[in-house]
């Protein structure tokens, strides 16, 4: 093998590592900390407040603890499948970020079938979960995996039906184009358009997405009171951390997609809040450490990213809010909700959205 190829691969691995670290620190950290603190506050508790100021270092401390735990593989487990499963759950959760537009030019790859890619990639995680449940050779984890398979496969349908409404309204499958279609101010966001059909689609998306991301009230696959912990009972140490991070990544993906599809993505809610904010201009170029950098373009990116990230965090807060409020549903209620409520409403909604576009 020639050295150029190896260097290319090494570069790609390096970039991937940097991006993953960035996502872990910037995306996961506020989410985990926020979940623990906000949920504690909502339950009139204090939450982690011992490690570091206001408990800010609790999450790094937990990660460090998980890192140097013993890597246990149960005797009866299928070693290979047991080891591969967490990777198969972890990787797809991050693959989604390839197509999510963080800003006008801040998108790794603007695929013209972006949403199809998203729903395809997120479905891979189910295979990993079923593998984990089966390979553990534990009845609780197997039951959790069965539930997960049933839940995730049935909720994929209303989720895609909800995806379809912004697609129909925007007339494109590319996430970046969908965001650009919502340019202007709040009124142009899909959640407020088409006589409330967008809002209804968002409602379906939220319910189905909560189930897809295994968040309470739809977390029956890891129902602690029935299944101990579900498919990941036998996992410990870093393998458990991978499942944990994948779950949070999925929750953030849910928020980021909701923002992209329904809340205007990186667009500011009012045009005067987009770059240039309040008309404040920054110098076009700036000389930093002897190099000329396009400062204005950077600022624009930063403002767009801030809007996207702020909206996503607000969405995450809503998810935590729901999680702290609602009790877990039963398995049959969960299936009823998907097949008897969400899918019919989603189909009617999609047809109405089609009429809306045709009549316009």
């Amino acid at each position, binding site marked *: 093998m020639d050295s150029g190829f190896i260097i290319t691969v090494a570069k790609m691995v390096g970039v991937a590592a940097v991006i993953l670290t960035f996502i872990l620190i910037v995306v996961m950290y506020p989410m985990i900390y926020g979940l623990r603190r*906000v949920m504690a*506050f*909502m*339950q*009139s*508790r*204090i939450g982690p407040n011992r490690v570091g100021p206001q408990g800010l270092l609790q999450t790094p401390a937990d990660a460090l603890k998980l890192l140097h735990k013993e890597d246990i593989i149960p005797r009866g487990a299928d070693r290979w499948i047991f080891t591969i499963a967490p990777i198969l759950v972890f990787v797809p959760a991050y693959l989604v970020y390839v197509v999510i537009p963080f800003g006008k030019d801040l998108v790794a790859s603007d695929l013209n079938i972006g949403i199809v890619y998203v729903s395809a990639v997120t479905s891979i995680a189910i295979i990993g979960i079923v593998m984990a449940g089966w390979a553990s050779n534990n009845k609780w984890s197997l039951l959790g995996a069965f539930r997960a398979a049933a839940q995730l496969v049935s909720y994929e349908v209303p989720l895609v039906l909800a995806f379809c409404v912004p697609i129909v309204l925007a007339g494109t499958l590319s996430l970046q184009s969908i965001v650009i279609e919502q340019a202007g101010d709040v009124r142009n966001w899909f959640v407020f358009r088409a006589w409330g059909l967008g809002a209804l689609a968002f409602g379906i998306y939220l319910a189905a997405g909560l189930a897809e991301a295994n968040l309470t009230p739809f977390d029956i696959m890891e129902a602690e009171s029935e299944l101990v912990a579900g498919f990941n009972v036998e996992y410990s140490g870093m393998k458990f951390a991978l499942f944990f991070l994948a779950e949070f990544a999925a929750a953030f993906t849910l928020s980021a997609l909701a923002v992209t599809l329904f809340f205007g993505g990186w667009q500011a809610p009012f045009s005067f809040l987009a770059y240039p904010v309040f008309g404040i201009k920054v110098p076009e170029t700036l000389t930093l450490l002897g190099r000329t950098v396009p400062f204005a373009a950077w600022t624009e990116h930063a403002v767009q990213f801030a809007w996207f990230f702020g909206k996503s965090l607000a969405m995450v807060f809503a998810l935590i*809010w729901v999680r702290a*409020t*609602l009790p877990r549903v039963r398995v049959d209620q969960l299936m009823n909700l998907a097949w008897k409520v969400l899918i019919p409403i989603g189909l009617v909604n999609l047809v109405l959205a089609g009429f809306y576009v045709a009549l316009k």
Partner: protein
Amino acid sequence: MLSLLKEVLYAPYSVVKGLIITIIHLFRPKVTLQYPDERWDLPENYRGIPSLPIDPKTGTDKCIACGACARICPEQIITVESETGEDKKRKLTEFKIDASRCMWCGLCVEVCPPGALVMSKEYELATDSREGMVYDREDMHRHGGTFAEESEESEESEESEESEESKESKESDPTDRTDNNLTEGAKAES
């Protein structure tokens, strides 16, 4: 049909109601008591381990070594050792209680003629051995602290009242009292 519609409308209503309740609680004062740093204000009739508080007038406990507590104890865990002094009065030499088998019934406290035995407010009694659970006279002095400086009669009357009170409350629901304790502590905390 109408009842179904009612039920359908009730679902979002109840969800929104729940969400409002949680968001209100987000801004409410927290009820957590950061235990080793903060402690409950224990109520007056709290039942910790039986103890022998020091009488500030004599500098020692009020025990007359009658042995009534040892006899009434359902678990037979109290040992009272005494000797007859030169003035032909019994003197307490050793008092032991095995807290590992104590059930905090308070009979010894009720029966004590001079009111020397008192349920203390000590509850941190964890040790790493069974022997560590056996408390001698000095431990019981430590747990009990000192009697409040009061005149003899008023204290006695108070004691009798208190014992009657505890009898009454024993007949009533004991969980009721713990609830009161909690609310009292929470009040004190906030």
